[in-house]
C-alpha cells in the first residue's frame, strides 16, 4: 500500500473512527473534530490522478480511486467540511450536546469523502448511505418541533432513495457483470436503471419534484450543518449522476430530459425562493436553482459529441466547485445574523459571485457552461443562449432577497464571533481568488473576460437589481405583497397526503390479511371442537352399546355379514 493509497484510506477512515468514538464516548478530542477533514484535503491536493487500488476483503471487493472529477469534488468538499467544522465549533460553543452533533458531523463527512473516492458501485452505495443516515442527526440536532418534522420527511425520502438506488445497482451489476462504477468500466445501463438512478440521486440533488425535503432540512439544521448540506452533500447526487448515468440506447433523449429538468428546477427555485422569509430558506431555494443549472451542464455532457464531452464535464465540475464554496460562504454568513451591517456587506461578494459577476468564480463557471453549450445541437444552443441569462436574473433576485432579509436583521446588538467571521472570509477568498487562478479555470477566465462575454454576464445582474429595487418600492406600499409567502417545502403537502394514502392502504391490507388468518384459525377451532349436542350423542351412543341386546345384535349382524361376504364373495 503506497503512501497515497494509505492517504486515500485515512481520508475517510479517520473521520469515521473519530465520529464513532465521539458518539460512544462524547466530549473526547472534541477540539480536533473539524481537523479530521485535513487528510482528505491533502489527498485532494497531493494524490496523483487516476491512482486506484483494490481492498479485496472489504464488502464484495472494494476499489478506491481518484480521477479528475473526484479530485475536484474532493477539493471543495474537504475545504467546506474543514471550514464549516471550525465555524461550527465556535457557533455551537454554548450548545450542550455539541459532541453528539460533531459525532454525526464526522460520520457524514466520512461518508461524503468515501463516496467521492469510491471506485466501485457498492462502496459508493455504502458511503452514500452512511452520509445520508448520519446527516439525519445533523438535521434534528436542535430538537425543535419543525426540525423533527423536517427530519422525518428527510429520512423517509432518504430511505426511498436508498431502496431505489439498490434496485438500480442490482440491475446494472447483473447486466454488466462487474461491480466497477459504470463510467470507469464503460458499462451501459438500461432505461429502467437510468430512471431509478436519476430519481435516487435526484432526491439528494434536489431536482424539481424531488426537492421537497431541502427547503425544510437546510434551514432546520444548525448553520455549519446546512452549509455542508447545501455546499457539499447535495453534490453527492450530482456526482452519482456523472458516475452512473451512462445510458445506452436513449442517450439523446436522456440529455434533453436532464436539461429540461435542470432549467425547470432553476426557474422554480428562483420563483418560490423569492417569497421566503427565512434567509436560510432563500439560500436553500437558491441551491435548488443552482443545482438546476448544473443539471443542465450534466445533460449537455450527454448530448455533446464524444470529443467535446470533457468540456461539458469540466464545466459541471467548475460550476459545482464555485457553487459549493459560494453557497458555503453564504450559509456560514447567516451565522453572523444580527451582527453589524458591515458583515452583511461582506456577504455581498459571494452573493454577486453566485449571480455570475465577472472576475468572480461564478462568471468563470457560467462562461464555461455557455462555452460548452455552444457545441450543442442548434435547437438547444440558442434556447440555452436565451434561458441561461434568465436564470441568472433569477439568482440575482434571490440574492437580493437574501441580502435584504439579512440587512433588515443586522441590528448590530450581537458581536460577530471572530472565528465565524474568519471562516466566512476564508471561504470567500478561496472562492474568489484561488479558484479562478487554478490551472483549468485559468483559460476559462480569459474567455470570460472577452468584452462581449462581459456584457452577457453583466446585463442579467443589472436587470435583476432593477427588478429587486422596483419590488422594494412596491412592497413598502402594499403590505399584502410584503408578507405573501409560500410555505417552505411547497410541493410536500400533496406528497404527504399521497404517503398517508399509501399507509392507509397498508392498514387495509393488514386488516384484510389478519381477518383471513383469524377466520381460518376460528374455523379450525370450531371444526375440531365437537358441539355440545354431538358430545351428548357420543356419550349416549357409547352407553347404549353397553346394553347386551344392542351389542348382541351387532355381534349377530356382523356374523351374518361375514357369512354373506364369505359365502357370496367366494
Amino acid at each position, binding site marked *: 500500500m503506497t503512501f497515497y493509497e494509505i492517504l486515500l484510506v485515512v481520508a475517510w477512515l479517520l473521520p469515521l473512527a473519530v465520529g464513532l468514538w465521539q458518539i460512544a464516548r462524547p466530549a473526547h478530542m472534541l477540539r480536533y473534530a473539524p481537523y479530521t477533514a485535513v487528510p482528505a484535503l491533502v489527498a485532494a491536493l497531493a494524490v496523483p490522478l487516476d491512482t486506484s487500488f483494490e481492498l479485496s476483503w*472489504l464488502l464484495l471487493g472494494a476499489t478506491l480511486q481518484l480521477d479528475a472529477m473526484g479530485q475536484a469534488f474532493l477539493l471543495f468538499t474537504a475545504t467546506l467540511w474543514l471550514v464549516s467544522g471550525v465555524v461550527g465549533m465556535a457557533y455551537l460553543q454554548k450548545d450542550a450536546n455539541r459532541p453528539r452533533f460533531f459525532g454525526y458531523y464526522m460520520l457524514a463527512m466520512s461518508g461524503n469523502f468515501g463516496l467521492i473516492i469510491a471506485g466501485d458501485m457498492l462502496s459508493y452505495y455504502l458511503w452514500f448511505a452512511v452520509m445520508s443516515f448520519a446527516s439525519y442527526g445533523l438535521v434534528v440536532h436542535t430538537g425543535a418541533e419543525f426540525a423533527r418534522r423536517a427530519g422525518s420527511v428527510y429520512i423517509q425520502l432518504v430511505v426511498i432513495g436508498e*431502496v*431505489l438506488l439498490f434496485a438500480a445497482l*442490482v440491475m446494472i451489476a447483473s447486466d454488466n457483470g462487474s461491480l466497477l462504477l459504470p463510467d470507469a468500466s464503460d458499462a451501459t445501463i438500461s432505461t429502467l436503471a437510468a430512471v431509478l438512478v436519476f430519481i435516487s440521486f435526484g432526491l439528494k440533488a434536489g431536482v424539481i419534484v424531488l426537492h421537497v425535503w431541502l427547503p425544510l432540512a437546510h434551514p432546520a439544521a444548525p448553520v455549519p450543518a446546512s452549509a455542508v448540506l447545501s455546499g457539499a452533500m447535495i453534490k453527492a447526487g450530482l456526482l452519482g449522476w456523472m458516475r452512473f448515468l451512462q445510458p445506452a440506447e436513449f442517450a439523446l433523449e436522456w440529455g434533453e430530459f436532464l436539461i429540461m429538468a435542470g432549467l425547470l428546477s432553476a426557474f422554480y427555485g428562483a420563483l418560490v425562493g423569492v417569497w421566503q422569509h427565512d434567509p436560510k430558506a432563500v439560500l436553500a431555494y437558491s441551491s435548488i436553482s443552482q443545482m438546476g443549472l448544473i443539471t443542465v451542464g450534466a445533460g449537455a455532457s450527454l448530448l455533446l459529441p464524444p470529443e467535446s464531452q470533457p468540456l461539458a464535464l469540466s464545466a459541471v465540475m467548475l460550476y459545482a466547485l464555485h457553487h459549493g464554496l459560494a453557497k458555503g460562504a453564504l450559509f456560514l454568513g447567516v451565522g453572523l445574523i444580527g451582527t453589524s451591517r458591515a458583515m452583511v456587506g461582506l456577504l455581498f461578494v459571494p452573493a454577486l459571485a453566485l449571480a455570475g459577476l465577472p472576475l468572480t468564480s461564478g462568471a468563470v463557471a457560467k462562461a464555461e457552461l455557455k462555452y460548452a453549450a455552444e457545441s450543442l445541437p442548434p435547437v438547444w444552443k440558442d434556447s440555452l443562449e436565451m434561458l441561461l441569462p434568465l436564470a441568472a436574473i433569477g439568482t440575482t433576485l434571490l440574492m437580493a432577497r437574501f441580502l435584504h432579509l439579512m440587512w433588515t436583521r443586522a441590528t448590530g446588538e450581537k458581536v460577530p464571533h471572530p472565528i465565524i467571521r474568519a471562516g466566512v472570509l476564508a471561504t470567500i477568498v478561496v472562492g474568489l481568488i484561488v479558484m479562478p487562478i487554478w490551472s483549468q479555470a485559468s483559460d476559462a477566465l480569459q474567455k470570460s473576460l472577452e468584452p462581449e462575454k462581459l456584457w452577457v454576464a453583466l446585463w442579467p445582474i443589472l436587470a435583476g437589481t432593477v427588478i429587486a429595487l422596483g419590488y422594494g418600492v412596491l412592497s413598502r406600499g402594499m403590505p399584502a405583497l410584503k408578507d405573501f409567502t409560500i410555505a417552505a417545502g411547497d410541493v410536500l403537502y400533496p406528497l404527504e397526503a399521497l404517503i398517508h394514502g399509501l399507509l392507509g392502504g397498508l392498514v387495509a391490507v*393488514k386488516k384484510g390479511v389478519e381477518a383471513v388468518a383469524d377466520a381460518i384459525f376460528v374455523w379450525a377451532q370450531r371444526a375440531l371442537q365437537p358441539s355440545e349436542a354431538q358430545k351428548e350423542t357420543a356419550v349416549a351412543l357409547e352407553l347404549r352399546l353397553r346394553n347386551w341386546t344392542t351389542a348382541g345384535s351387532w355381534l349377530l349382524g356382523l356374523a351374518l355379514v361375514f357369512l354373506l361376504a364369505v359365502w357370496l364373495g367366494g
Partner: protein
Amino acid sequence: MTWESFLPVAIVLSSMIPGLIIFWIPEKQSQWRTGVNLLGAVVKLVFIAIVMAGVWRGDTEYEARLSLLPDLDLVLRADGLGLLFVVLSGTLWLVTTIYAIGYLEHSHSRSRFFAFFSLCVSATMGIALAGNLFTFLIFYELLTICTYPLVIHNGTDEAMGGGRTYLAYTLTGGVALLVGVVWLSVIAGPVEFTDGGALGHVEGHVTALTVIFALFMIGTGVKAAIFPMHGWLPRAMVAPAPVSALLHAVAVVKAGAFGVSRIVIDVYGVDLAQSLNLLLPLLIAACTTVIVGSVLAVFQDDLKRRLAYSTVSQVSYVVMGVAIFGPIGAAGGLLHLVHQGVMKITLFFGAGAFAETLGVKKVSQMNGIGSRMPWTMAAFTVGALGMIGVPPVAGFISKWYLGTGAIAADVDWVVLVLLGSSLLNAIYFLPILYRAWFLPQIDEWPHEEPGPANWMLVAPPVVTAVAALLLGVFASADFSLLSWVELIIEREYMP
C-alpha cells in the same frame, strides 16, 4: 466406527448427552449445570471446526450409517450445506446459553429448561447433518417434541395456548412431511441427499412428484412460517426470550427454511424442480410471505410480536433465494440463512434484555432507552439496520445476491418485492431507533432492575451485532461465509 463416521455423531451427541445429564442435575446446582452446558457447547464447536476443515479440503467423507429397517438407514453426513446450518446453530447456541443463564437467573425448573434446550440443538444438528430424507424427518419431528416444553416454559394459560397452537401447526406439518417422504420412498426407493438432486432415476410420476413437492412444502413451510402457515410464530412469542431468540430466530424457523433448500437442491435438484415448474409457485408463496410478514409487523406494538412477524418475512428470503432458479439466487438464500440468524438473534437478545432489565415490552415504552442501555440499543440498531439492508451490515450482502440472482434468472419482479420489503422493514424498524435515540424518556420504566445491567444480558447481543457487522464488511475475505457458500453452490450446481 471410524474417526470420520464418529464425528457427525459426536456433533449431534455433544449437546444431547449434556441435555440428558442436565435433566438429573437438581435445580440448585446452577454451577454444575452451567459447566456441563458450556462444556458441551465448546466440545461441539471443536468437532465442528475439525469437520469444517475436512469438508473445506473436500478430501474426507464424514458419514455415519445405522440401518433402522431393511431398506431404510439413519444417515448422518457432513456436507457443505449441512455445515452451514451446523455452524450457525452451534455458535449461536453457545451465545444463547450464556444469555439464557443470565436471563433465567431466578426462574423456575431451570434444569428442565436447559435440558430441553440442549436436546433442541442436538435435533437441529441432526436436521443439518441428515444424510437422507428419512433421518431429516426423524430429527425434524424430534425438534417439535423438544421445543414444546420450551414454548410453554412459563406455564401460564397464555403459554399453554401458544404451545397448543404451536403443536397443532407443527404436527400437521410433520404429518404432511411424513406422507410425502413415505410416498417418495415408495416411488423412488430410499432417497439420499445427493448434490444436484437424487431423483434422476425416476421417470414419469409427474403428478405424484408435484403433489409430493406440495406436501414437502407444507411440511417444511409450517416451520419456515410461509404465509398461510405462519400463525404459530407470533403466538409462540409467549416463550422466554432465549427461547424466542434461539428457536424462533435460528433453530425452528431455520430448520424449515433449511428443509426447503435441502429438498429443492438435494432431493429434487434444481433442474428437475424447474422442469416440473415447481419453483415458481414456491417463489410466489415466499414473496407473499415476505410482504405480508412485513405488513403485519408494521402494526404490532408488542416488540417481540413485531420481531416475530419480521422473522416470518425474513425467513422467506431464504425460501425465495432457493426458489430463484440459478446459483446466485441460491447463494443469496443460503447467505441470508446465516445472516438473518445472526441479526435476528441480536434483536431478540435486545428485546429480552429490555424486558428483563427495564420491563419494557412495548415499542411505545421504548422512548429514550438508548441513553439508559446504550450498548444493547447499539447492538439492536446494528441488527435493525442490517434487517433493512443498509450496508455494511450483513443483511445487505444477501439482499444484493438475491437481487442479482433474481435478475439473472429473469424474474425481475422479485427485485420489486425486495424493494417493497426493505421499505416496509424501514417503516417498522426506524421508528424504534428514532424513539430509542432521539426521543427523551417520558415516564418511569415499568419495573427497573436495580444496579448495573447483568453482563450476561448485554454481552451476547453486542457479540452477535459485531458478528453481523464483520460478516458484512469482510464478506469476500478468504475464509468468510461467502466463500463457503460459493463452495456449496459450486458443488451443488455444477456436479
